[in-house]
């Protein structure tokens, strides 16, 4: 079960939107110069998060919601990894604004997240199939 997390990087990406009302599509991302991580895997999280009120050195992104189940892609022997384009479902008013990359072994167990304040982001994997676990954001009754 022990996982070797080598590093965590947050990338700010530009979301390319198709026609209005279409689901946001994240373009293919190609990362090179990871030769030192060859043979390992990159776990890609598409998240909606907020920056700390005070942008001090060492602060972390607070992830509110993981927009879609993460994908795992292998880093090839040349140190290159290709993250395929992906359409993200629209969930409430949360918008994908950060990509979090976690390096693990290829066969490492699934990864879950916890924010620095102890909170756990809304995560589609933690709801029974077909049922949204986001009631407070995406459904209400008046």
């Amino acid at each position, binding site marked *: 079960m022990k996982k070797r997390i080598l590093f965590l990087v947050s990338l700010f990406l530009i979301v390319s939107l198709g026609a209005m009302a279409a689901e946001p599509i994240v373009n293919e991302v190609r990362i090179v110069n990871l030769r030192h991580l060859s043979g390992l895997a990159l776990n890609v999280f598409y998240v909606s998060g907020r920056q700390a009120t005070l942008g001090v050195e*060492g602060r972390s992104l607070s992830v509110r919601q993981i927009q879609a189940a993460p994908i795992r892609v292998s880093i090839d022997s040349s140190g290159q990894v290709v993250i395929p384009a992906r359409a993200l479902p629209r969930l409430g008013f949360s918008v994908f604004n950060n990509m979090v990359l976690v390096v693990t072994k290829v066969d490492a167990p699934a990864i879950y997240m916890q924010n620095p304040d102890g909170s756990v982001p809304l995560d589609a994997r933690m709801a029974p199939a077909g049922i949204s676990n986001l009631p407070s954001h995406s459904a209400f009754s008046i």
Partner: protein
Amino acid sequence: MTTKMTIRMTMKILRIGVMALGLAVVTSGVALAGVQAKEKPACGIGRAVGLGLTERGQKYFVEHFADVLFANGISLSEGQIDSFVLNAEKPLKLDQLPIHFQKFSGTLGKIRSILKSWLLGFSFNDPLIRVEVKDIRYSAQIDRLGFSLQTSPVREFTGANSAVFVLEAQIPSLRLSAASVMGKNLNNSSLKTFGVRGLFTELSGESKPLEIQIPIGVRIKETGNVEFNILGIHTSLDQVDLKMGFDRPLVLPRVEVLIDGHPIALNQAALERELLKLKDRYLEMLQVLLDRFAEEQLPQKLNNLIQAYLPQNLVEGNEMAAPGAPVMGAAFQTKFKWWMSPQELRQESHMLFLGLAASVRDPAKSSVEALGTDWSCAEDSMRSMPTFSGAHPADYDLALSLNQDLVNQILGLSFARGYFEKVPYGDAGESLAMTVAPELVLTGALAKDRAILRLQVAKKPQGIEKFFVENPLLFSFDMNVRLVVTPGVKGASSRISLLVDRIDESTVKVKRESVKLGFLHSMIEKSVKKKIRRANVGYKSNPMALAKDVAIPSEVAGIPLSLQSLQSDSSGYIVLYLEYGGQKQ
């Protein structure tokens, strides 16, 4: 065992973190004994962090509020809601319609007649409608999304810690769709469900843009307890041109006639045709319905939602690199944890000021229970407001004040880890060991870029000193330091260095217990002062950095900032005068 419990037990939690980059404070030497953190939650420091938005700074939010929302993971240009249920509170009576719907009484009467004739004389009770809308999506092109302070007072929000903000949007293109809109007449349950699928409505190409204005009252009742109150929603829905569409066939009551025991369904297409003759009127009704709903009911409904979902205490927790952590290993050191909570909101003549209480703890030294913050004491012995006199409000967007008590709390935590232990002494490479955490003092008549570091130090006696003083010799003094800004290059944040200016000889005090023969205390103190005079000459000829390249906050709420100037504020704050837009290259 529930699914959730199983997940909790089996999941591997990964702490989210961003690689700590850059340096914090450069110091040298060997660690002294650490100071154990007290095992109780830290007392929140009142007015620990202040955000002063000038008029110039407030204008940014009028133009760039969408960017601020995006940086915080929210977009108002598209949205999705799984479901929405509207329960009418009382039956709809055609002769007692609200004033805005009276013009539709004829249309509603016609619908009733159509249904009556198709349902073979079925008698209707006054309908009590329940509508369920599923998978609502909207997409909008928002030309202007602004957030500004309302200057005209609102009675309920004129007191202390209160303000009214106005969210304004101009929307030239809007499409609203729902997978289904299904109604039930609770007073005529035999009608079952009726409605439409694939409903959409949008602004027509020739329409004026839709304007929306939402005043929101904000009041901080006590630290962390914030009230948000939507005071109204004003739209120009009654002045725009909408078009609508939906899938055919409609979902209508199914009518069957039994002839000799054989059920024969009536032609629903004909019923649908009859109903669709009134399609234009439906659009008008929808427009008025949305407008009235937004103006009359939605504010209260949204306020109820805010009440239900807003946490009782607004507290933000995050991390920071420990100042003084070893340069090479900084990224791998346990970070400090900080908590902040809104405490006050003031409308000053030249700025809007948000005061935040805060505390910082070291997870490496504190128990989990002690990592929290006691906010109840945040107002005890609170410093007076920063003067913000270091720059003209027209020359910056945002002033960020950092309370010296907060800075000292952080310095204390770093000291406890052994990061600050030596202070350069003179120009011969000699140093003094600190015995307690350094204390930053900003109060008093200091120049704009000066501060005082109150230090207690230990020195190993040399030569003949050994006969008269204990080892180590303990003494204290105030060190005058200069705050020097190093502008960031290539997008990096600006940094501050603390350069030693001089030691204030008049503040030197040798600890009596350090002197072996009490009557020699005065003489020993004079001797120490003499050495300090020499050291001061060294500081002048060879300016030394007590702390180098301390990174300053590079963002507030995701908005990149660049430092214009700083001030040592006599009320006890370091004030950073900032401009939006990150570092200039």
